[in-house]
């Protein structure tokens, strides 16, 4: 029930903000703030009463009938990965409301309605496990985002919004076709129509075409090279909060989709596709970084760093081991804060200097030392300085990728040098050097200080104490089929040289080792060996039940 509450809170709150906006703009702002704070409170409560049911990764959820004629169900389930992303959504939601406080002056009520609808759609995406419902949520977050860009964006907002819409809509249609194809395959095999994720697992593990349908949709959202070109336009033209939500949340839905759907639904096809996907990831890392260096528009530059950072996620997912996936989860959170903060910074600068052109900035440290320090912090996060969240993520991702494909991991690591170049170049152009702009812009306001402080604390936490995040995501990631759980064939403790050399040998060619070698579930049940294709994979949480049952009920009145 709590998941429904999370979504309804945002939808109803959004409507309320719209209504309040007719009365006064400030009422709309406060309504939105209270709604997002409530959301954060609910999520906090969620963390407090975390106790997974025996042998199930789902921490909370609801299963109910929705359109019985087509056996479309309302299935909202949350595991550790979803919980982390929902938390990110709630935190960034509050920050997005705060960021818009002064920037948005027109049609404020409707603005906040759209903003909260995006959040609701995102939470829906992170929890919906009926594929039909998932598709609905996927579209639900797209339209209000389109409106945010098209109505409250900058000079070329219309073109950017249309580009954004076309890219995501067309790729979304491919996913819809793939969903229908998957359901059809299941129908042919069993004679029952269902869109239940849990039932569809193992339906078509090797179907390359269905996998590609999903992949393209997620790759556009991620965004993966070469489908990334909508992102710089959308980011540049979106209002600050729009950029924050785009970078922080919408891109994460693509990453989430890869982990949630591609690997579990199509383990064999994904394994076959992995070299191509990993290569695309590495190209994205390098290409995005080089383009970021070349940009002169602050927001466009940050947008390309997103392409680079999310390339790591693509690399991680198709490295198909636990280390890389853990890294991908941390990267999703860390990127949400670090890149989000850079967009907020860009917005703050634009408000003060009325330009995003880096060539017209310079020496800003002299004028605004506190903002300079903040920029320094997030530039360091972007280049992967140890001690901050992005480093933990990139370290785990590269380590996992190294385990899977050494040359690609080495190439991806070069991305760290490129990241250094663009991050330092950004600081040099905007904040160091002689003062280039006139006037005396105001240093950080208390509201902005609060926003940045939250984001800095989050990145430091992720960088120094990532273990709670890793632990929260672990049970869910352990269950992804085809994912090897160990870093090497290493056994702790003393052992003979011969054994070590043998394991070194098997490590050198990880692809040849059976992928599911180490895969086992917490409850002792074993996933089907993806490579050997042992047929039907028994889902540890069982086939979907019919009728209505909630996980919460099973947990003995915890609801």
């Amino acid at each position, binding site marked *: 029930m709590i998941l429904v509450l999370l979504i309804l809170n945002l939808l109803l709150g959004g409507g309320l903000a719209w209504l309040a906006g007719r009365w006064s703009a400030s009422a709309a702002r406060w309504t939105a703030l209270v709604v997002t704070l409530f959301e954060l409170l609910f999520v906090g409560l969620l963390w407090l009463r975390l106790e997974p049911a025996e042998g199930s990764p789902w921490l909370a959820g609801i299963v109910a009938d929705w359109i019985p004629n087509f056996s479309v169900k309302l299935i909202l389930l949350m595991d550790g990965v979803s919980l982390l992303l929902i938390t990110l959504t709630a935190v960034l939601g509050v920050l997005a409301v705060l960021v818009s406080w002064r920037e948005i002056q027109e049609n404020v009520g409707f603005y906040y309605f759209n903003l909260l609808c995006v959040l609701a759609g995102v939470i829906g995406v992170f929890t919906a496990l009926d594929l039909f419902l998932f598709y609905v949520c996927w579209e639900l977050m797209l339209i209000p985002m389109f409106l945010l860009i098209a109505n409250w964006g900058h000079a070329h907002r219309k073109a950017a919004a249309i580009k954004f819409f076309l890219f995501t809509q067309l790729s979304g249609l491919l996913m819809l076709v793939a969903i229908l194809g998957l359901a059809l395959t299941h129908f042919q095999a069993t004679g029952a129509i269902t869109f239940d994720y849990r039932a569809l697992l193992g339906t078509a593990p090797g179907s390359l075409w269905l996998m590609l349908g999903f992949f393209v949709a997620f790759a556009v959202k991620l965004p993966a090279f070469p489908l990334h*070109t909508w992102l710089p336009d959308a980011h540049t033209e979106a209002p600050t909060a729009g950029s924050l939500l785009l970078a922080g949340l919408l891109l994460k839905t693509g990453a989430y989709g890869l982990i949630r759907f591609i690997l579990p639904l199509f383990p064999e096809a994904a394994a076959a596709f992995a070299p191509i996907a990993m290569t695309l990831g590495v190209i994205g890392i390098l290409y995005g970084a*080089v383009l970021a*260096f*070349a*940009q002169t528009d602050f927001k466009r530059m940050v947008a390309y760093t997103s392409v680079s950072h999310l390339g790591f996620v693509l690399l991680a997912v198709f490295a198909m*081991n*636990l*280390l890389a996936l*853990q890294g991908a989860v941390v990267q999703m959170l860390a990127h949400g804060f670090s890149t989000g903060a850079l967009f907020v910074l860009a917005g703050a600068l634009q408000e003060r200097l009325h330009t995003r052109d880096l060539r017209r900035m310079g*020496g800003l*440290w*002299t004028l605004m*030392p506190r903002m300079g*320090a903040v920029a*320094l912090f997030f530039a*360091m996060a972007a280049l992967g*300085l*140890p*001690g901050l969240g992005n*480093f*933990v993520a990139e*370290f*785990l991702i*590269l*380590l*996992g990728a*190294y*385990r899977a494909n050494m040359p690609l*991991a080495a190439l991806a*690591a070069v991305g*760290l*040098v490129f990241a*250094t*170049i663009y991050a*330092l*170049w950004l600081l*040099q152009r905007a*904040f*160091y*050097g002689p*003062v280039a702009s006139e006037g005396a812009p105001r240093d950080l306001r208390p509201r902005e200080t609060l926003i940045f402080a939250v984001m800095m604390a989050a990145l430091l936490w992720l960088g*120094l104490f*990532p*273990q709670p995040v*890793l632990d929260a995501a*672990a049970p869910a990631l352990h269950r992804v089929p085809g994912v090897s*759980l*160990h*870093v*090497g064939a*290493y*056994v702790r403790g*003393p*052992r*003979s*040289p011969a054994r*070590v*050399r043998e394991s*070194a040998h098997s*490590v050198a060619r990880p692809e040849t080792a059976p992928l599911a070698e180490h895969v086992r579930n917490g409850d002792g049940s074993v996933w089907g060996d993806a490579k050997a294709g042992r047929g039907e994979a028994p889902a540890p949480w069982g086939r979907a039940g019919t009728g209505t049952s909630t996980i919460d009920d099973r947990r003995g009145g915890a609801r």
Partner: protein
Amino acid sequence: MYSLIWLVPIVPFAGFLLLAFAGRYLPRRAVAIIGPGAVGLSAAVMLLISGQFLAAPPAGYAYEQTLWSWIATGGLEVGFTLYLDPLSVVMGCVITVVGFLIHVYATAYMAEDEGYSKFFAYMNLFVGAMLLLVLGQNLLVLYLGWEGVGLCSYLLIGFWYKKPENGAAAMKAFIVTRIGDVALLIGLFLLVVQFGTLDIPAILAAAPGAWAVGAPAAVAAALLLLGGAVGKSAQLPLQTWLPDAMAGPTPVSALIHAATMVTAGVYLIARLHALFALAPGALLLVGIIGAATLLLAAFSALAQHDLKRILAYSTISQLGYMFLALGVGAWTAALFHFMTHAFFKALLFLGAGAIIHSLRDEQNIFRMGGLRRRLPAVYWTFLAGALALAAAPLITAGFYSKDLILFAAWVSPVGNRWLWGAGLLGAFLTALYTFRMVFLVFHGPERTAPHGRPGPAMTVPLMILALLSLLGGFVETPADLGGVHLFSSFLGHALPGLAAHGSPALEAALQLLSTVAVLGGIALAYQLYLRRREATARWLARPAPDAARRLLLAGWGFDWLYDRLFVRPFVWLATVNKDDSVDAFFRGLARASLLLHGALSRAQTGNLRWYAVGFALGVMALLAIVVFR
């Protein structure tokens, strides 16, 4: 007592936080107490712990303290763990003590600067990160410190950020060292995949059993780690950043770019000596890089006219000696030279800072002269440092450490005569460029008049460092000169000793040769730059010497080469593709749809005859397909 080890890195971090958040509201006096005070407190704790380590060493000469579990997933467990053994004791003591002296000096040196609290905040952050680097029990904590000191180096080189060239130097330092860091990071991956751990003691214990000597994986791991070391320690081919790094304030050059951070590469190789012992090829490469770097940098130092750049090239050259020592397996000799170098090079930089300060930012040695009488305290301490750098026999610490390296290069089973010869030639060059500097700056006629004399906050650290530069070598002396082995026997609990021993006669002969080289260098400097200065200048003005001088001045043209090989292609690529050629495809798609739209809408004329013709043509085409298929 040992359990207090966490205080050593934490106190400077606390100082950083305090200064970073409250620095602007604090009076300068408070900043001048907090900044050095934090490092001083850290030094005091470190010295107490070291005293206990000497008096009652922990079991196995190692103590571990896990602060918290950092990352544990997928079979990899990394704790936030500190490690105390003789190696980290030596490093920790030198860093905190020299760091404290430099902080005290900086309170006076930076007194007029507007970024006073920011400066000490960065300096404290640096000391904290450097301590994490040497106290880290696993390679990830080490890497955290490694990148942390890189950040501080960047911030402090670009400390006077309003000048774009300082920013360029700072960026260059960060980016060039980051190239090495990426190699190091890949090396870490290799080690994790092989050993399933990043704990240094575990890797050192497991490596000899896992890899045969010369195994490809061992060589690869050693080479990757060497890549990191070469970047941080400014060795060939990544040495180009260090001369430019002199753009930072002089205390920064003393602390970061002479005494501590740049020796991190030496520390890394010494710390992972067991891996390098398994990779003889990589080890030989370490020695060759060291020898080549020490010669190239020493030649470059000869041609510089900027006081700080001379010292920068000298630092590269001395780091080359340390690499040479590592390359012949003389781990303790490398560490010994690290220690003495930290004393005398910090001293020289601080002395240079005092000169530059009183000459109102004049750095060209050809516009200095005769400062001996006007700045006596600086002169005598600088002379002590110069003698130590030149390795003047018997009375200086530099003599004992350099002698140990040259001796090891000769007698070590993995050493060879060529490396020794390079070291000897280097000793001659070192004496020559050092005393060229001394004679030009302090002797001869006065060219620029100094303003005032440095106060006690500057001279007292100079004197302490001068004493250490002269006396610090007596902890380890060769067999024929007392045979004290305090340093090597203490480090022997962490680093294996050198297997080979030469005869006393050989040792004495080698000492005699290096003494001749050093005294010859000093004498030549005296002739060229004091007695016959005019003749030297005339000779240097001739075309061939002048061309050579310009090549050396530019550091052998590495910057020129890298600019064309890497910088320009990268910038060109980025500029050409600024508008994202991938998007051209999608833009083309949009344009094509518009064109098609235009073409098709032109067909909608409203003219019935056109429609009829189109209809008829369509029908005919369909029929044709059906009939002739």
